[in-house]
């Protein structure tokens, strides 16, 4: 199946999922308020922890608050729902239809996720002022940092989608995933660096987190944004992200092949 021939199918999926996003505006707005609530809490907690000191460990309070605001805004925006989609569709037996379509299922998922993300884009306009009021916003220190952030952000989106897909594919083996999802969301949430930046983590914990792909979703791009990029330079930081994107793509290829085998050969 050629790449170009698939484009109309992908485009339609993107459209459908943009429409879907609009239908769920109410929960989207709730999501923004919740992100705001978290941003505000972190602002208050960290301000209180700084206890009047201008900077701790070389990080000024203001920069710290910008980091927290941007990273929580970004965590709010980057929440691919496709993991849950897969679970639902496997549970309800609709996955069979998805598999019979002439476009590979993983690529359908990526298109859906892209639509979700684009559908949410207008909501960023609503979210930004909320974040600015409740947290602390500032422009990146240089235009290079700004451009670097955008590039890094797109890779981050891709990694987030890949991780969600891997989690969702587990549904082909077991349908009861509540516990699993929770572990993922929370360990993931923490290991992304959205609540505590890596530089404030105790050494052992930081080293563990650096070995995981999650930091590439939030910590890496936001560190580029505030001008103190992870790994020292934004190019190596993005190289690290690309490395993870490729590794995870490999994992998906393997898991997907086995999932397909399981469904087709053994019956869903």
């Amino acid at each position, binding site marked *: 199946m050629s790449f170009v021939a698939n484009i109309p199918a992908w485009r339609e999926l993107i459209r459908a999922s943009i429409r879907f996003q*609009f*239908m*769920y*505006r*109410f929960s989207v*707005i709730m999501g923004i308020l919740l992100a705001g609530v978290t941003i505000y809490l972190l602002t208050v907690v960290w301000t209180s922890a700084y206890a009047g000191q201008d900077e701790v460990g070389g990080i000024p309070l203001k920069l710290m608050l910008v980091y927290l605001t941007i990273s929580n805004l970004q965590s709010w925006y980057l929440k691919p729902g496709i993991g849950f989609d897969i679970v639902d569709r496997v549970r309800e037996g609709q996955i069979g239809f998805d598999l019979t379509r002439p476009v590979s299922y993983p690529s359908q998922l990526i298109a859906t996720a892209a639509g979700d993300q684009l559908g949410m884009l207008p909501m960023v306009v609503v979210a930004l002022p909320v974040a600015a009021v409740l947290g602390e916003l500032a422009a990146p220190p240089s235009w290079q940092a700004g451009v670097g952030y955008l590039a890094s952000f797109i890779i981050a989106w891709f990694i987030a989608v890949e991780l969600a897909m891997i989690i969702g594919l587990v549904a082909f083996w077991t349908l009861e995933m509540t516990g699993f999802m929770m572990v993922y969301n929370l360990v993931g949430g923490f290991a992304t660096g959205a609540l505590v930046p890596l530089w404030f983590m105790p050494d052992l914990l930081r080293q563990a987190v650096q070995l995981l792909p999650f930091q590439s979703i939030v910590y890496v791009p936001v560190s580029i944004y505030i001008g103190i990029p992870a790994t020292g330079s934004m190019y190596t930081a993005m190289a690290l992200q690309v490395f993870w994107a490729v590794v995870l793509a490999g994992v998906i290829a393997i898991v997907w092949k086995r999932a397909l085998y399981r469904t087709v050969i053994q019956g869903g």
Partner: protein
Amino acid sequence: MIEVRDIAREFRRPRQVHGPLGGLRTFFTREVDIVHAVSNVSFSIDAGEVVGYLGANGAGKSTTIKMLSGILVPTSGTITVNGLVPWEDREANALNIGVVFGQRTQLWWDLPLIDSLRIIAKLYRMETAHYERNLARLDELLELTPFLDTPVRQLSLGQRMRGDLTAAMLYEPKILYLDEPTIGLDVVAKERMRGFIERVNQESGTTIMLTTHDLADVERLTKRIIFIDKGLVLFDGPVAELKHRYAPYRELHVTLAPNGDQPELPQMPGIIDIEETPGRLEIRFDPATIAVADLIAAVVASHPVTDLAIVEPALESVVREIVQSGEVRR
């Protein structure tokens, strides 16, 4: 046993707002659409009666049953069931009634049927001996033993319905509400269900109110019909009277000899309609205007008849007629 006076129930739903932020505006909008599911319904049912509650989809049948069982509170009007107001004395009323919704189960999905029945027995404060006696009797009528230990989610629809009926009858309620009890069942299962309902009524004197789309249920089980349409009672009385009032005609079905002539029948007063197909005549006539003997004589005189039958209109077609005409004939 059941007294219903002038009940009405309307449903309000916020009007869907379209356009930008439509969802959010719908959530906060104060505009509502009002739907009158039941406009004005009154009837009373005596102990031991079996009543068929009929009407088209959306006529207000389920809404009425839900008000009788205490699920919905009427917008206006009064209901007493065995002396209790269902939605005010909900728990006391619950002890008096059994409810079966054909499309939904009240059993515990993941547990074996027997577990659900034990829980029901406990909820309805039954003594162990009483429970075992009733279960044995229901088992005999509904043949539950083969699947008592099967989780409910693995039961076939017919088995599940038997389980639901058992759950509803286990504590011997005085009143049984059945909402579409035979929906989706095959012929054998339907017949078993009807036999069961009949026996429960005869042996325990249970008052039964039944909504159904399957008029065979009604013809078999009930003597009395309450027919509602658009939230109003159109008819309340015996099945025979419904037929008499809405279909005061008979049909003469005539089979003709093969290759015989099929001349026109002479015009006669009292013939309402003639449907002619090769080898067959269906004559609808009014028995009050024309004597059956005269009609038959006329047909036999002009046609090579091999078989004759006089047919009462089926309830099915009567009901169709009422719903289509939508008018009340007194």
